[in-house]
């Protein structure tokens, strides 16, 4: 069950000039959020803004979201300081299935935030986790970790190339039996899902779509998903409620 909470920012740090990581006090959300879920945050603009959950601290009752400034709403939210508050609806959507013991996480763009939450969760459970993260160039690198495989399109840090080039450096031992969880821009998720298919691995992606309600009542956020029923070409599934996580095999790119 999701509810609207008035929440206070407990800390903020700028990861680079255009990206903030803010920590928010909300024991209700922190206690039940799972990786892949998101929150819908009120700003001064008419609609709320959806952001993936980047981390939770159950003891402190806090969670974090990473906000990249791309327009008015994200700019306002990224400028919130400690002590300021806003209404937050969440946690929303379906998280990733974490029942396997071996995972490869692939992140890019604002996908690095949910990937961070996945990494925290899976490594705390002692599961095998490899992470590949891709950025445009060295100046864009955020939420990175020395254990991760880093790629940049520009080649000024890590491996030159995209996430698939990063995935290609994994050994058969790393790959066999792994499930791939991928969050990032559409072209990246598409490429990673066909890489996974070639290797015969399960792959789940988190789709992004413009939203209004975030809770499944308005149908503005749909994604094209292969239909279950015969005779129908595709289903329009709600990204916010039926997703945002989908089996990559089901997605019509």
């Amino acid at each position, binding site marked *: *069950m*999701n*509810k*609207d909470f008035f929440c206070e920012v407990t800390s903020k740090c700028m990861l680079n000039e255009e990206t903030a990581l803010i920590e928010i006090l909300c024991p209700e959300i922190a206690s039940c959020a799972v990786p892949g879920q998101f929150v819908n945050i*009120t700003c001064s*603009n*008419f*609609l*709320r803004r959806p952001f993936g959950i980047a981390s939770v601290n159950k003891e402190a009752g806090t969670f974090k979201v990473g906000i990249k400034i791309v327009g008015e709403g994200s700019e306002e939210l990224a400028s919130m300081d400690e002590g300021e508050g806003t*209404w937050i*609806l969440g946690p929303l959507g379906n998280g990733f299935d974490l029942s396997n013991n071996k995972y490869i996480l692939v992140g890019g763009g604002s996908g690095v935030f949910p990937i961070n939450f996945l990494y925290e969760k899976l490594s705390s459970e002692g599961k095998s986790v490899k992470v590949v993260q891709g950025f445009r160039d060295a100046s864009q690198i955020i939420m990175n970790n020395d254990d991760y495989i880093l790629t940049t399109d520009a080649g000024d840090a890590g491996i030159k190339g995209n996430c698939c080039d990063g995935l290609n450096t994994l050994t058969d031992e790393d790959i066999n039996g792994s499930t791939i969880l991928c969050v990032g821009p559409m072209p990246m998720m598409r490429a990673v899902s066909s890489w996974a298919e070639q290797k015969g691995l399960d792959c789940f992606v988190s789709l992004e779509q*413009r*939203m*209004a*309600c975030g*809770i*499944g*009542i*308005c*149908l*503005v*956020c*749909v994604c*094209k998903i292969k239909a279950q029923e015969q005779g*129908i070409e*595709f*289903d*329009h599934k709600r990204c916010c*409620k039926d997703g945002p996580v989908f089996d990559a095999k089901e997605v019509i790119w």
Partner: protein
Amino acid sequence: MSERLFVNVGDTFLKSPIILASGTCNMGRELSEIYDLSILGGLSSKGLTIKPRAGNEGVRVAECKAGMLNSVGLQNPGVEHFIKYDLDFMNTLDTGVIVNVAGHSTEDYIDMVKALDPHKDKIDALEINLSCPNVKEGCMSIGSDKEQIKKIVGQLRKLTDLPLWIKLTPNVTDISSMALAAQDGGADAVVLINTMLGMAVDIKTRRPVLHNNTGGYSGPAIKPVAIRMVSECYRVLDIPIIGCGGISEASDVLEFMIAGASAVEIGTASLVVPDCPQFITEELEAWCEENDTDIRTLTGTLQLWQ
């Protein structure tokens, strides 16, 4: 529930004047997990068609100042699926069950009413949507022609005893003649208004934000237009009006009722604050107590300047 809030829309009794507007509450499942929908006067289903519809592709929402554009395009599971999986659920909510009916042609509307009439014990009213701006044929084009409105309502009237609420489009020059045509056809009430046709442009790409190019504008920005239409129609109609458009607080409900509405629908506000109809209901109750007034006595008490 306070006795102060009940209203009658023609022969239809509603516990409260507040109804959730079609397309902004799906079939009620999601919101019923957030607050108790039995405090409402009713809930109007997502717009239904004979066959399932996938709706429009691509971007379907564009944020605007004080509102939004949508171009969902009547995505719905089809009436058969609705009867099988949703109608009984809506009946467990202990609130008025309004079924929103859409179509592309007169035949579609006839088939819809024929499909729904056998389930009349589970339905409080049919809301005939002659006003969706997001589909290519039918709907809004029927609702902008008074002869067609009268004809279609007349044909539906013969098929069912269920209350027929005709939902009209504001995208016309003379709304009162459309409302009168619905009344002449035998409507029990009119619902004013559906969304206003609009467009938003992405200045970077020089393309419309919506992949349908145009969409329906809803939210606080359209409230003055809706109030004006309610007031205009109230002065010429004998049948009740359900007001809709931009309601986001209790005073908006009062404004609509004073202008002539017997009940109201809340749409887009639920997309921003999902439990706002609950707060609005509480505030209306408090207002009625403070003013020692039953809400139904407000309808049409507007005094125009001479």
